């Protein structure tokens, strides 16, 4: 919120200055024209809403003579765009025609004198108050207001007619509506181009601030201030109204309007100062120089408290407020970018998309090969360091946009050559593929086999790799597989005792694991074929129960019958077996209910197989596959990098005569999470409707085929408390945020509570000193009380009534809302202490355990003492300690008898004595106290206690009729067993006590281990209890 706000406020004075500057000087009449043309030119890609405006420009401009060339250019583009727009969003189009004529008509006559200012002025004056002041100098104002009408009408389809007719006043603010409309458009994902326009404006805006503003500011200040004053009321009013929901829209509009106005004003000088002909390289250079100036001016503004307050009340500057320039396709080709910090108008994802859209490469960390680092606000310190280290060029957001707008896709020779080479390669590969296909066809035809025509097959089959070389990624793994198969017969001969190069030759089988669609099965088949094996594949479509696996593979076959019989051998599954067969057990983790014992049988098979077996699974670590651990060599396949898939996909696309740029392919690959099969499937589907795919289409397609994955709580919490999810530019809706909670609804709230204090809240950026501390505490307070609310809801959810329908509310209260207050840098983002696992779980089970032990103490003391557990803990324990423990510390071993006497008095056993010590806090903390008692005294106590008889208040129920398990002396209790046989372990101490008279020799250690076992058991049960 803060950053954007600061931006707007920063640019506001500048805008005001410019407005005054232009409004004041009559001589500026000449300048406007170039500006306008510039506007037109710089916003070539507007949506329908825009196009209307552009046409207006069109109309106007003939009368003004200058800058015609460029304008025309733009107009052409814009009209194109318009068409496109129309196609995409038909409803919007409808509204355009009506207002357009009127707008253009009205505008034409009026604008002629001062067309240049119409934009600025109109934008700057959102309320009627401002109107009079302006109207004196500018006739253009009314015109502009009218002009605004069509815009607005386009943006908000419903309201337009009203606005048109009735309020001229209203329409002024509405002028800005195009940008809002753009927001909507953007959010809907219908028109990506719309926002671009406003963006460029902003770009230009800053541009001008940099070059021309300084002088301008000084000169026109007085007039500017006047204008500002007059307009001030108008401006402020809408801002404040933002807080109120109803007015929000209009407020936004006005603000946008302001921006635009400024932008336009600035755009003009830019056009003037810079010719159209300036090379992109030059402009970027300039940008960089200017950036230095621009940034300090921005930061100096931040200090102003009043402004900060105003910014806050204004809410986040509208994301998407900057138009995205319509650069040449691939204008960023060959450049690599790193984004860091928060951009004001884009979310990180959008910015990354933008770079990719224009062919740029985006990496996560800056390195020496990074061309530009796009620096947002509050960039990470690590990245800044890296920038300094590598001496990288940095861009601000606006410069980045400008780079897109101005850079021609000129590539240096090297990258060009590289690209060409790549292209050539692709073409060659495609040719080769075709050749191979033809060959296959011929072979098919000649042999007359019944194989279906390749052309009619699925792409995934048709373009499946034919050789090992063609497999994308996992080269090393494939090689291992191949060499294992290669050495198979020799390893078989020597009994699998020579590890070989990769250590694979010790195994009779290999287990390939990895996510779907990355070529595991293909690799297995191809490797088998390449090594001359005939693959026999059994997959989940075959029943693979123990019996069938055994029968099908002849594990237990001891007869020579088949072999002697001669002819073709087939097994029970009807597959021919030769000594050069290779069994591929596909999808072994899919051996489930129907395949009882299948994995075991497979394992048995592996142990004595005389042919190589390749098992394939998605999850190599599954419990089900445990038996295979010792007998197979693990060969994990990883998701291939996008780069290694790209060329293959491009080849396929080329062969299918589809036009798909490389960056789109990357997008698809990323969207499918490197699932090659899915990408090919997506392409084949796409081919049915279209031969080309642009960036946005690719993105949508990838989104449609998105795989849903569950995030771990750690990832969720990092995302949630991180600086981006709630930043003003974030695009996540509330339900997206709630979705995070549902990734793990029981853990996320705990993680939030554990870690919410570890961030450096982004909302504090504009505070300093005591205000910062107070504000921080205030945010913490709000977060904490929200968490507390959340717990109340949680209690309802887990109450006997089980209000599960409250879960969304719980999600908001316990996770989303607290995070919305204190999100920011910190843990996981280079902050001091990383996110940690919630202590609550451990502490809760500890509490449960101690509570249970306290219960034991209480019930033993019950015959003497009337107090309940809290009373025992709070009052008796402090009173008993001096009698039970202090003598041991002060006197030592000789006090043992005295202590035992007290213990007997209260029926306390040694075990309860331990509990009493453990329950101590602070100065009575168990560690402190136990340290003070000498080891000799401790053993003495144990021995003496065990040596004597003690009164027993009660026997545990289970003791009768059931033979208690003897744990002492035997093997250590199995954890699982302890869990199941809760009570048995529990009553152990009891029995022990009775037995104690017999076995004095048992020392403390044995007892200790026992009590531990009990502790575990109690802990688990107690936990269960506590949970409910």
């Amino acid at each position, binding site marked *: 919120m803060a950053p954007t706000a600061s931006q707007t406020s920063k640019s506001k004075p500048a805008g005001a200055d410019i407005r005054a500057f232009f409004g004041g000087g009559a001589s500026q009449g000449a300048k406007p024209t170039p500006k306008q043309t510039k506007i037109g030119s710089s916003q070539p890609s507007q949506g329908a809403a825009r196009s209307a405006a552009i046409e207006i420009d069109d109309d106007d401009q003939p009368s003004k003579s200058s800058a015609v060339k460029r304008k025309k250019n733009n107009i052409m583009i814009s009209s194109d765009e318009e068409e496109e727009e129309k196609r995409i969003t038909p409803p919007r189009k409808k509204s355009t025609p009506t207002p357009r004529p009127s707008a253009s008509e009205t505008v034409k006559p009026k604008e002629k004198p001062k067309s240049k200012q119409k934009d600025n002025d109109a934008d700057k004056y959102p309320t009627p108050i401002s109107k009079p002041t302006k109207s004196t100098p500018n006739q253009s104002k009314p015109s502009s207001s009218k002009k605004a009408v069509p815009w607005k009408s386009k943006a908000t389809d419903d309201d337009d007619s009203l606005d048109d007719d009735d309020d001229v006043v209203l329409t002024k603010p509405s002028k800005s509506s195009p940008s809002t409309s753009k927001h909507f458009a953007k959010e809907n994902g219908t028109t990506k181009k719309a926002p671009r326009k406003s963006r460029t404006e902003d770009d230009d805006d800053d541009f001008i601030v940099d070059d021309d503003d300084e002088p301008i500011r000084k000169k026109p200040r007085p007039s500017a201030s006047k204008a500002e004053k007059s307009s001030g009321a108008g401006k402020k009013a809408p801002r404040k109204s933002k807080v109120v929901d109803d007015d929000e829209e209009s407020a936004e509009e006005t603000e946008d309007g302001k921006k635009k106005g400024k932008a336009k004003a600035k755009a003009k000088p830019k056009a003037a100062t810079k010719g159209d002909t300036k090379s992109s390289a030059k402009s970027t250079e300039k940008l960089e120089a200017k950036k230095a100036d621009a940034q300090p001016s921005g930061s100096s503004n931040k200090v102003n408290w009043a402004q900060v307050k105003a910014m806050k009340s204004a809410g986040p500057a509208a994301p998407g407020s900057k138009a995205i320039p319509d650069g040449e396709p691939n204008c960023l080709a060959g450049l690599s970018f790193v984004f860091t910090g928060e951009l004001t108008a884009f979310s990180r994802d959008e910015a990354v998309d933008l770079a990719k859209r224009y062919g740029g490469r985006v990496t996560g960390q800056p390195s020496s090969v990074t061309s530009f680092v796009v620096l947002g606000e509050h960039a990470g310190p690590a990245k800044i360091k890296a920038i300094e280290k590598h001496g990288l060029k940095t861009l601000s957001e606006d410069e980045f946009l400008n780079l897109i707008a101005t850079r021609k896709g000129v590539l240096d020779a090297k990258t060009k050559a590289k690209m060409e080479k790549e292209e050539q390669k692709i073409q060659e590969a495609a040719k080769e593929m075709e050749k191979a296909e033809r060959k296959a066809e011929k072979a098919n035809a000649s042999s007359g086999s019944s194989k279906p025509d390749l052309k009619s097959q699925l792409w995934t089959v048709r373009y499946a790799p034919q050789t090992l070389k063609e497999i994308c990624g996992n080269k090393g793994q494939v090689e291992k597989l191949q060499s294992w198969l290669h050495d198979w017969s020799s390893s078989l001969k020597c009994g699998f005792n020579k590890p070989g190069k990769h250590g694979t030759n010790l195994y009779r089988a290999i287990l390939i694991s990895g996510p779907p669609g990355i070529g595991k099965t293909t690799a297995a088949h191809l490797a088998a074929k390449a090594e001359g094996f005939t693959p026999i594949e059994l997959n989940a479509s075959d029943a693979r129960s123990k019996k069938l696996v055994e029968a099908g593979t002849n594990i237990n076959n001891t007869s020579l019958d088949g072999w002697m019989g001669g002819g073709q051998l087939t097994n029970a599954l009807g597959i021919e077996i030769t000594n050069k067969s290779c069994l591929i057990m596909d999808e072994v983790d899919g051996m489930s209910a129907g395949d009882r014992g299948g994995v075991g049988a497979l394992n048995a098979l592996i142990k004595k197989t005389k042919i190589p077996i390749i098992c394939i699974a998605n999850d190599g670590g599954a419990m089900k596959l445990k038996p295979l651990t010792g007998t197979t060599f693990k060969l994990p396949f990883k998701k291939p990098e996008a780069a290694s898939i790209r060329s293959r996909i491009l080849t396929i696309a080329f062969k299918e005569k589809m036009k798909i740029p490389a960056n789109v392919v990357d997008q698809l690959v990323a969207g499918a999470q490197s699932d090659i099969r899915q990408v090919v499937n997506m392409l084949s589907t796409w081919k049915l409707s279209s031969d080309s795919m642009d960036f946005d289409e690719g993105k949508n397609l990838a989104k449609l085929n998105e795989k849903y994955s569950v995030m771990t709580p750690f990832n969720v919490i990092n995302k949630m408390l991180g600086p981006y999810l709630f930043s003003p530019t974030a695009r996540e809706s509330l339900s997206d945020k709630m979705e995070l909670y549902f990734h793990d609804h029981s853990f996320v709230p705990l993680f939030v*509570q554990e870690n919410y*204090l*570890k961030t450096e809240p982004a909302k504090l950026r504009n505070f300093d000193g*005591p205000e910062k*501390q*107070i504000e*921080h*505490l205030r945010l*913490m*307070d709000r*977060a*904490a*009380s929200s*968490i*507390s609310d*959340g*717990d*109340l809801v*949680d*209690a309802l959810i*887990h109450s*006997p009534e089980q209000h599960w329908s409250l879960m969304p509310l719980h999600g908001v209260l316990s996770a989303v809302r607290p995070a919305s207050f204190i999100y920011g840098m910190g843990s996981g983002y280079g902050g001091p202490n990383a996110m940690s696992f919630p*202590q*609550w779980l451990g502490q809760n089970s500890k*509490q449960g355990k*101690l509570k249970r032990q*306290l*219960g034991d103490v209480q*019930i033993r003391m*019950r*015959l*003497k*003492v009337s*107090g*309940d557990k*809290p009373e025992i*803990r*709070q*009052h*008796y324990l*402090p*009173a*008993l300690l*001096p*009698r039970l423990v202090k003598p041991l510390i002060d006197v030592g071993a000789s006090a043992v008898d005295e202590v035992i*006497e*007290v213990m007997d*008095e*209260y029926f306390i056993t040694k075990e309860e004595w331990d509990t009493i010590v453990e329950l101590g*806090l*602070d*100065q009575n903390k168990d560690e402190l106290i136990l340290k003070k008692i000498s080891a000799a005294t401790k053993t003495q106590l144990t021995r003496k206690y065990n040596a004597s008889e003690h009164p027993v*208040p*009660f026997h*545990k*129920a289970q003791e009768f009729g059931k033979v208690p398990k003897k744990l002492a002396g035997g093997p250590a209790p199995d954890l699982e067993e302890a869990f199941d046989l*809760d*009570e048995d372990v529990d009553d152990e101490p009891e029995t022990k006590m009775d037995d104690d008279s017999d076995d004095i020799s048992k020392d403390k250690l044995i007892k200790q281990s026992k009590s531990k076992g009990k502790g575990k058991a109690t802990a688990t049960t107690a936990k*269960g*209890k506590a949970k409910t």
Partner: protein
Amino acid sequence: MSLWVDKYRPRSLDDLHYHAGLSARLRSLAASGDFPHMLFYGPSGAGKKTRITCTLRQLFGPGAEKLKIDQRVFMTPTKRKLDVNIVQSNFHIEITPSDVGIYDRVVIQEILKEIAQTQQVDLNARQRFKVVIINEADSLSRDAQAALRRTMEKYMSNMRIILCANSTSKLIAPIKSRCLLMRVAAPNTAEMQTCLQYVAKREKFDLPPEAAEEIIQDANGNLRKALLVLEALKMQSPDLTGPLAIAKPDWETYCNKVADMIVQEQTPSRVMEVRAKFYELLSHCIPPTVILKTVAERVVERVDESLKADVMHWAAIYEVRMRVGSKKIFHLEAWVVKIMSLYKQFVFGFSMDDFEA
């Protein structure tokens, strides 16, 4: 060798030192033969259990004092096994259903029915009914209380129930209306003085009234605490004269440390330190309400006059939330953060308008 508090516990209604009216009523009730269900309530250390035991003795004679403890296993509908400790004599049975948390209903149903359905076998028994004492009745779940209400009426002939609770506020009205309410108030200073002097006399030492006064002050109406403190003091300084330093129990000093931490510094890291301390206290079986109360009282001592009301206000609010909610630490921490925020603002002289409700 027992602690004095146990050694000199009154055994019969006649031995009780205070609430003479209550004792008289209990005596006449026991004699009347029409003994109702009863609900004893009052703060801890006031003598509820003592009075119950005395009443039982009055009802059944000394046989009721012969206690044995039994451990029973119950099976929940979900096949979980629950251990429940039962203290019983031939004439009565005492259970603490809240030991088993939300499964208390099972215990109530099973035990009560079992007892209610069997008649008194001992022909020599003075009464035809058995008595069931339910401890910590105020922490019974609603389900358990509901299970209780019908049983109380249905098996009246075989069984009387004595509920023992700290407060009646968590008991549902139908239960309260079926019981004779017996309020056992905390003894006042004079009454406690008598008790302490009585113990001193029996122990054959001289207790200066000032010392007793101080102990009583510290005990805050909890006679058990007073007697325990007295004994500890006597061990510490046998003559009990001069300035007495009553040692605070470990958990109380720990709570005070937490309070001091809150007042000293108000930062996120401090909140986390406080959280660690709270966890420590909670896991060592100090009830969360006690923690909140102790810490809040200490904080109130240390902050400015104008903040005191707010501190207590929020402590009250978060105590309620703690009872309603399930994860106590969340509310404790929310309170701490709130107090820190308030305190910080006070220090910097900000208005507290934002914190209304």
